[in-house]
């Protein structure tokens, strides 16, 4: 493999591992230094490999350089005295050299601990997602800015403030106690859910980055499932939900970035393997007494993988949306419930209910009403679709809506 391709690939796979281990070793107050050391390591790799060629084992090369840089830092810093001497005293064969542990076990442990550290409600959700992308996923600042459709400086500032806050609150990098995991994991799942949704539903144009966000969220969720202490039913449910959604990734976005609606998707493009994985994790999550919103959303997503429309399908979806809304209100769930209501009881009943939702400023509300009127009242349907087109901020959505209006106009003439 050429150096040009190799370094970005190594960056994506190895940055996060080294960063997590070093963050944990240095403590929350030196999180930026940990990041810098890993970044410098890659910089040095690019320079050296360019001159001398790619080493035989590039990963080992990176680890050795990062270890040496980390040791230099520790020696120069007070934390050497506090932490390292202690660690050496405790080590069985106390040599005078501190080993930085880049074993697989320690990498995984460090990443899990960092997950709990970053997904902390003391910093705003978008900062949690940003930090997760940087430290847990090894995204560059440019890529994060791309994902959020914002400027590099904005992301830098956002991450700086978040790190300062964590430092100020002296947040410890450690696994919560076993009794605490149940409550702490909620925060982690919320952030992973946001990360996934940012990729799946965001209006960003770069479909490669969007897909990467989803895959990263799934990878992190899978790490939680793989670990004995964090393998909770709701974690399985969230991973199941992500698998079901991701199964339609190829079908729902055209190569040019245009959205394809569920009913118009080429079902042969649905990823059967991901659907199977979704079912597997849904079953695995069906233990214990917790019924989280992820269970309900995963069950809804499961019904959506069934191609044939039956009354049973829509009755089940309606019932699941009712339960979901009773646990937690969200405008989008309210609209989806109304759509399911239409499929079970007819459009007229659903229109009456829809009008009570007070979501006049939401373009999805008008899209829904447009859809519900389309069979009976062309004029009203077009009115609502026009409002939806006016209200949406996403170009992809707008295209879809304008197409619908065009179709309705053809019906008139």
């Amino acid at each position, binding site marked *: 493999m050429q150096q040009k391709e190799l370094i970005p690939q190594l960056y994506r796979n190895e940055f996060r591992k080294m960063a997590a281990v070093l963050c944990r070793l240095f403590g929350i107050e030196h999180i930026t230094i940990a990041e810098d050391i890993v970044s410098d390591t890659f910089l040095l790799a690019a320079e050296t490999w360019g001159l001398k060629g790619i080493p035989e084992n590039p990963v080992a090369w990176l680890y050795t350089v990062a270890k040496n840089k980390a040791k230099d830092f520790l020696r120069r810093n007070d934390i050497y005295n506090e932490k390292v001497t202690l660690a050496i005293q405790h080590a069985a064969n106390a040599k005078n050299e501190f080993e930085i542990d880049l074993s697989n076990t320690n990498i995984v442990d460090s990443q899990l601990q960092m997950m709990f550290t970053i997904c902390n409600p003391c910093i705003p959700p978008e900062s949690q997602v940003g930090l997760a992308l940087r430290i847990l996923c090894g995204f560059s600042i440019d890529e994060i800015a791309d994902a959020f459709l914002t400027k590099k400086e904005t992301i830098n500032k956002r991450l700086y403030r978040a790190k300062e806050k964590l430092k100020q609150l002296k947040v410890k990098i450690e696994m919560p106690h076993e009794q605490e995991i149940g409550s702490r994991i909620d925060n982690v799942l919320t952030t992973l859910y946001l990360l996934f949704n940012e990729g799946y539903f965001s209006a960003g144009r770069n479909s490669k980055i969007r897909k990467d966000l989803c895959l990263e969220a799934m990878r992190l969720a899978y790490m939680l499932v793989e670990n004995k202490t964090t393998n909770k039913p709701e974690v399985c449910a969230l991973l199941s939900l992500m698998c079901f959604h991701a199964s339609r990734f190829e079908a729902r976005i055209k190569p040019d970035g245009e959205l394809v609606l569920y009913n118009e998707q080429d079902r042969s493009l649905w990823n059967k393997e991901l659907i199977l994985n979704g079912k597997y994790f849904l079953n695995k999550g069906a233990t214990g007494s917790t019924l989280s919103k992820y269970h309900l959303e995963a069950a809804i997503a499961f019904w959506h993988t069934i191609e044939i429309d039956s009354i049973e399908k829509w009755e089940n979806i309606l019932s699941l949306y009712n339960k979901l809304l009773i646990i937690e*209100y969200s405008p989008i769930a309210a609209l989806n419930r109304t759509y399911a209501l239409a499929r079970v009881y007819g459009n007229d009943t659903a229109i009456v209910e829809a009008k009570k939702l007070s979501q006049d400023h939401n373009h999805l509300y008008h899209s829904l009403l447009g859809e519900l009127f389309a069979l009976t009242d062309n004029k009203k349907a077009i009115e609502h679709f026009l409002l939806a087109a006016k209200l949406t901020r996403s170009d992809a959505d707008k295209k879809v809506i304008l197409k619908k209006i065009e179709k309705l106009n053809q019906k008139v003439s």
Partner: protein
Amino acid sequence: MNEFVLIFRNDFLPEAKFSPDEMQAIMQHWQEWIGGIAAKGLLANGGNRLSSNGNTVKPNNIITDGPFVEIKEIISGYIVIKAADIDDAAEIAKGCPILMVGGNVEVRDIIPMNI
């Protein structure tokens, strides 16, 4: 928006037994009614159903069986909703499935407890 409790009262009929199908239909009505309230963002608390098993504790160490010895009606559950005023809350209560089986809904304003 203020919060109101909807208290569901029903005749106590120990002999009333529903078939599984009837039971499912009843549950579906309730779920859809509460789901509809939740879809409007007006459900403050999903509340609870109350079992007909219970005791009543009275002064002088007297404990009687069941909450319903002297009254025909029992409270079978409650939810907490958000509404502009008591009339608005009563309007929501009109959709309650308990009305179809002869029960009633008591709508009460909540006064926050300041202890």
